[in-house]
């Protein structure tokens, strides 16, 4: 459904996208994962026909983004990052405008607008001015306008950025409901979001694809290492040494802590090990044996930075081998 070959985009001397190739089949939900400034938005803007690539080609629904830009734009729904929409238009008026320009027949327009309003949970906001909506609702309107023409392809650029936790959960469940028949490409820099929403993940950094895998395989890669935070009331040196002496421990390092953490007492360490669960059990037993106080044991969520370090590290290693 989406086919990208050797796509490169320069802004002056800056190479924003560097020979990127991938393809996405019909019905797939693919996450574009990468830190800010890694070229995700540029890539999406090329796919939506907003601007053309410097070189390479891209196809959406069989249409060339450069030669048949209108065809591409007819086939897709796009939710840009941080879009404010038109603050002076009411929700239903804005959606009617979009229905008009997306070529939905006059007779079906009203029904279709009402459908997406229901689908995106905007019933109570229909007559409000977009400028008066909360960010969460504005994001719903942005998703609603993308869905209006029942596009085959949906492109969502950081759909949950800037939302509060409840809105984030709501928007994620809305997106999850969209999968199935539609092909979805969404970008994010939040690791958990990818595992929640996407079947496959393309990881980009510095405009290049660093890795491409299924979400399951990706989480396995991260699970190859487990980090546990422990907070123990006891002599720090002895605690560290005792934990290090346990089996299967890779590293024990003092945890970087904020002032609010240190006020909780004890001393905190991050324990890096192959396997998480048994290590946590052993640590608990160890602390009890020594008569120290166990204040906290917590599995740490893997972060995007760690994933990158591992992926890039692995790549450099294979590079060195060759």
């Amino acid at each position, binding site marked *: 459904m989406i086919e990208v070959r050797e796509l490169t985009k320069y802004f002056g001397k800056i190479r924003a996208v560097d020979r990127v190739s991938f393809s996405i089949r019909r019905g797939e939900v693919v996450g574009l994962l990468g830190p800010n400034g890694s070229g995700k938005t540029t890539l999406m803007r090329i796919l939506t*026909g907003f*601007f053309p690539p410097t070189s390479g080609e891209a196809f959406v629904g069989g249409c060339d983004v450069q030669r048949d830009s209108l065809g591409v734009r007819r086939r897709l729904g796009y939710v840009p990052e941080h879009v404010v929409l038109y603050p002076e238009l009411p929700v239903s008026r804005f959606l009617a405008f979009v229905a008009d320009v997306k070529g939905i027949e006059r007779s079906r327009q009203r029904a279709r607008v009402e459908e997406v309003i229901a689908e995106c949970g905007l019933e109570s906001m229909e007559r409000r001015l977009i400028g008066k909506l909360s960010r969460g609702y504005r994001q719903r309107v942005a998703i609603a306008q993308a869905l209006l023409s029942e596009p085959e392809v949906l492109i969502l650029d950081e759909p949950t950025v800037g939302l509060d936790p409840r809105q984030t959960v709501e928007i994620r469940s809305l997106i999850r409901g969209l999968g199935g028949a539609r092909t979805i490409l969404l970008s994010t820099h939040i690791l958990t979001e990818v595992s929640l929403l996407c079947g496959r993940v393309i990881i980009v950094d510095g405009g290049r694809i660093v890795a491409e895998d299924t979400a399951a395989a990706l989480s396995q890669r991260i699970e190859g290492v487990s980090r546990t935070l422990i907070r123990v009331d006891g002599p720090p040196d002895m605690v560290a040494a005792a934990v290090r002496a346990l089996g299967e421990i890779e590293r024990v390092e003092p945890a970087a802590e904020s002032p609010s953490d240190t006020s909780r007492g004890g001393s905190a360490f991050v324990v890096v090990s192959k396997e998480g669960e048994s290590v946590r059990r052993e640590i608990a037993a160890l602390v009890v044996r020594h008569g120290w106080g166990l204040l906290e044991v917590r599995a740490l969520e893997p972060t995007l930075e760690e994933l990158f370090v591992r992926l890039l590290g692995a790549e450099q290693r294979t590079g060195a081998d060759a």
Partner: protein
Amino acid sequence: MRNVIAVFRKELRTYFFSPLIYIVGAAFLALCGYFFYTDLLHFVTFGFGVNIMENFWQLMFLDIRKFLLFCVPFITMGLFAAERHLGTIELLLTYPLRDGEIFLGKFCAAVVAVMALLAPTLLYPFYLHSVQPYPLLPVVAGYVGLLLLSVAFVSCGIFISALTESQVVAGVVTGGILFSLWAVSWNEAAVNPETLQVLRAISMFDHFHGFAVGVVDLRDVAYFVFTVLLFSHLTFRALEARTWRGRR
């Protein structure tokens, strides 16, 4: 065509549901009203109430022209600059719309907005005619001139708006350019006669003068049509800039 109408309707809705156009309109009509009164006094006291075209309408049209120059930039400044500033341009340009359809929709909406400012001034000729009948046809010529002038102003404003992200910059630059196109032929002593000829040919206001005295000269009409085409062409190039930036 359907797409043009869709954009047109959206722009009109944006114009008439925000306060700006009412503020600009109020200022415009207040000025027009005041000058209608003073020009009429001038006509009665110094023109002895004869030759209404020369002694009244000419002054009136030249005054309205000045106020248009101040008002049109406020109307055109947001057309593209606001879309860029808000980020909605990204949506607009990724909808299945041609650049020409977006341009035409916005252009027509701005022209209609300016006409909405001018429309209430039609009261003056009809009021005067009811007090003392006089030939209305030359006045019609004057209004044709105002219309052409407005369209030319709008085409200039829309072009400048397509170049920047800031409405303030768009408004100020548009005002500056329109003012320059008026002022180039002011100081007749500063240039030699040949150059003055050229400057007169460029000056948007010199081309309006014929209309103000009730004369429709095809050369003046051609000038305005050419100006509109030139600025429209430049606007297209400005919108296209996104497609060649980043090429090598």
